[in-house]
């Protein structure tokens, strides 16, 4: 898996203060996509163990407290990404107590395959659906266009 950008402190993608990873690889071809440069699975850099270690460390930082990890892209559920994403999420759940996971995907929740669903089991908040330019509204919270849905999958998530 490649990733195009990693933000150790982010407040724009999900609730609270977060670590955010934009992975590479997306097949949705949404018109008006802000992240076209992330479409190719080869974009950006290789997601190595070191990057994963860094994320775990940042999530556990005691000085700048994080609410959790955000996975966006590109699409974290792109077939080429699912394996690594699953591994990463499992690590977070294991090594970072109380951190939640937010995910943005261009797929729709009801249409996910088995592998993808296995990931969603561990995700707290999922924002799904393609970006539709005609339905775009900058005043929406967490959503680019009104067709997308914010699924609070695990109500028991921290602070909720």
């Amino acid at each position, binding site marked *: 898996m490649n990733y195009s950008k990693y933000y150790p402190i982010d407040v*724009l993608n999900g609730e*609270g*203060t*977060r670590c955010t990873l934009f992975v590479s690889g997306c097949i949705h071809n949404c018109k008006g996509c802000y992240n076209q440069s992330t479409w190719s699975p080869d974009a950006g850099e290789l997601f190595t163990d070191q990057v994963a270690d860094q994320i775990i460390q940042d999530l556990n930082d005691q000085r700048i407290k994080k609410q959790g990890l955000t996975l966006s892209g590109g699409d974290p559920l792109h077939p080429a990404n699912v394996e690594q994403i699953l591994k990463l999420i499992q690590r977070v759940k294991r090594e970072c107590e109380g951190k939640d996971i937010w995910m943005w995907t261009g797929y729709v929740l009801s249409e996910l395959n088995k592998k993808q669903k296995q990931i969603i089991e561990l995700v707290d908040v999922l924002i799904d659906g393609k970006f539709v330019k005609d339905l775009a509204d900058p005043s929406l*919270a967490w959503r680019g266009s009104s067709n997308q849905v914010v699924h609070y999958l695990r109500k028991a998530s921290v602070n909720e």
Partner: protein
Amino acid sequence: MKPVVIKRDGSQVPFNALRIAEAVLKASGAARCKGVDAFAIAAEVETSLVGQEQVDIHYIQDAVEACLMKSNHIELARIYIEYRHDRDIARERKSHLNSEIDGLIEQSNASLLNENANKDGKVIPTQRDLLAGIVAKHYAKSHILPRDVVRAHEAGEIHYHDLDYAPFFPMFNCMLIDIKGMFTDGFKMGNAEIEQPKSISTATAVTAQIIAQVASHIYGGTTINGIDTILAPYVTKSFDKHLKTAQQWHIEDAHAYATQQTEIECYNAFQSLEYEVNTLHTANGQTPFVTFGFGLGSDWQSRLIQQSILKNRIAGLGKNRKTAIFPKLVFAIKDGLNHKVDDQNYDIKQLALECASKRMYPDILNYDKVVEVTGSFKTPMGCRSFLDVYYQKSGLDKGELIHDGRNNLGVVSLNLPRIALEADGNIGRFDELLNTRLLLAKKALDTRIERLSEVKASVAPILYMEGACGVRLKADDCIADIFKHGRASISLGYIGLHETVNALYGNEKHIFDCATKQQKALQIITRLKQATQEWSEQSGYAFSLYSTPSENLCDRFCRLDAKRFGVLEGVTDKGYYTNSFHLDVEKAVNPYDKLDFEMAYPPIASGGFICYGEYPNMQHNLKALEDVWDYSYTRVPYYGTNTPIDECYECSFTGEFDCTSKGFVCPSCGNSDPDKVAVTRRVCGYLGSPDARPFNEGKQEEVKRRVKHL
């Protein structure tokens, strides 16, 4: 034939030897030297001019000097030259005065008209104020202030703030109004005797009038320290009134009725107060700089006031729901009261977060840190001036700790980068020069104290006789005593610490990443602090170190220094100097690291400080904003959130307008018509609407370069 003399202004007069003799006599009087034959010298000069048809006045003066030197009156020659120099300066000022007045009449002097973001130079009352300011400044420079202070001010070595008001007028800078004392003891305003208000709506109405009066008698900010607790008793009065009505009319649930009516009344009362403050036009030709501090009250009445203030601000002003610029709101956060989830007023902190995300204010005061840094809790006077601890003596014991009714006497700021430039990178030389300049600043500050030393209470009845300053003096009483023994503060300001260390150590490493620069910066500020402490000990006045906000100064000092030392990378190349100790606005760091960087300074510059963070739109993520507020709680006393809240009424875009050198432009439709946009930016501790009145060039440049910290 006698030659024609061409005077400085170009006019021509016939030569008159008597004039020369007079000037020489005057000078010899001053030099106390006898035996000078002034007429002989005049005759000699006259002879030297024979054969010339026209002669320039400078030439004549040079000839007089030469004659004096030749006849061995060296001391006299020196005095004459000095006398001539003074006359030249006076003349130059006079013509400067004229050109400033011309600029006002023709509306051509942009820097004068835009000098204060809070003044609209196009309207007549403001123009009258500006004219008074021009004359007051001229008079103070020519007749009140010591010559070296004026020279240093004009050269941009120091800045004698607010010269358009003081020392010509015996005015002071900013204050905490003693509203509580005024309300409880009653007071007179104009011809009216005002007694204690009987409801919250009357209380806020009277408060607005007091603000208008006070702000007309001082030139800096007017603060109400803890308006929630001060006005809480009047919420009770309203409640009692509504309860009585309910009982009179046999309303079933009288208590619920009274509660609801009181809530409505309180909300409306604070709405009117906000309108009032934003539409006020004081005798100073401006909307008053007003600050409301609140947040510490825990009773239901105080809570209701806190909620009313915040909800009104969130709702916005007028039909466009514009962000109110005044009053500045400062919300106190205190552990055990409203800091943590389980604290009883935590809900109000949430409201404050929402308000900050939508309207930028409130800034926050972290209770414990304010106490640690300044000795006790208080709201800043104006936007950032903090008083120290003071006990009002009563009998033998230590007395009562008071804040309300106290004030700041004014500021003189040092141009720190200038000293570094003059020292040419030599640290030892810098330290020496700094010491000399400190003496000069002290001398300038002393003139402020001096000016107020023999003034009678009747110059400002509202302040000194009716209780705003917490005293009730008689008309003929002298006001000097209420500023002594640390009751008032008087401040040394400074600017451009960032550029100073760049000038000393070069521009390779940013101070954020350079221990040497950080160490030196702290040492400089510590030296300033030490100076103010020495002055306080010597004089009994509370000299304090104040981090100057510098709306104009950031532009002026830099411009003057660029002219003299050239455009130097990292120092004069940006067109502005960085605000006090702040991290340079271009440095991209997260707000946490910025706080860590800046937290060392408020404890030293305890007479005035504020820290900011630049945020993206946080309206959907109050939790993240709260994370930073909470982080700041144990680090800095006073923190402000800058977030993009601009609005376009043309295309209904909200967010951040593009800041260009020409002005502010809607990024979505290109609109920049001041009537159809609302742009809100932090200017100098206060908010401003730069779409209506543009910033000065340096400030515009600084705003343009601000980077987000997230």
